[in-house]
């Protein structure tokens, strides 16, 4: 019977995550350019966009839809979606 992994990470990793024969590291780094520095926080710079009208802005608390980020008590964008 295969040794059961007691640690949290061991329990999280299912069998198909374990790919001993995989050539490259399974963690893709595709979103950022290759020369993106590691271990640095990065906040995308806001650019101008169509704004809310004044009444909507006042009630939403921001003029910019891209900054309208209400905390809804859970992940805003689910990973699997």
């Amino acid at each position, binding site marked *: 019977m295969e040794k059961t992994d007691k640690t949290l990470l061991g329990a999280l990793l299912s069998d198909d995550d374990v790919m001993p024969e995989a050539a490259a590291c399974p963690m893709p780094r595709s979103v950022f350019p290759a020369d993106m520095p590691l271990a640095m926080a990065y906040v995308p710079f*806001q*650019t*101008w966009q169509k*704004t809310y009208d*004044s*009444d909507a*802005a*006042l009630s939403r608390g*921001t*003029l*910019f839809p891209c900054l309208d980020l209400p905390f809804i008590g859970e992940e805003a964008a689910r990973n699997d979606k």
Partner: protein
Amino acid sequence: MTSEQQKLLRRVQACAFTVHEAVLYLDSHPTCTEGLAFYRTHKEKYESVLAEYQKKYGPLTACASEGTRKWEWVTEPFPWELCANEGGND
């Protein structure tokens, strides 16, 4: 406060908020042409609706008092004195 006055005050608040948001954006994007154009148009709109409100209902800030015959700021109800504003001014 009459509903007419409340509606106008709401417009002043909305315009003020919009201009303030543009100001915050321009702080970090000082040469953004779209942001600058937006700021110019909405500042104008804000100033005109503010003038309209203050002409009808009195100053919203002390320094908005004209102070020609009296110091309106203290001789008229303060903006936050909602019930006192019933029936408008003299």
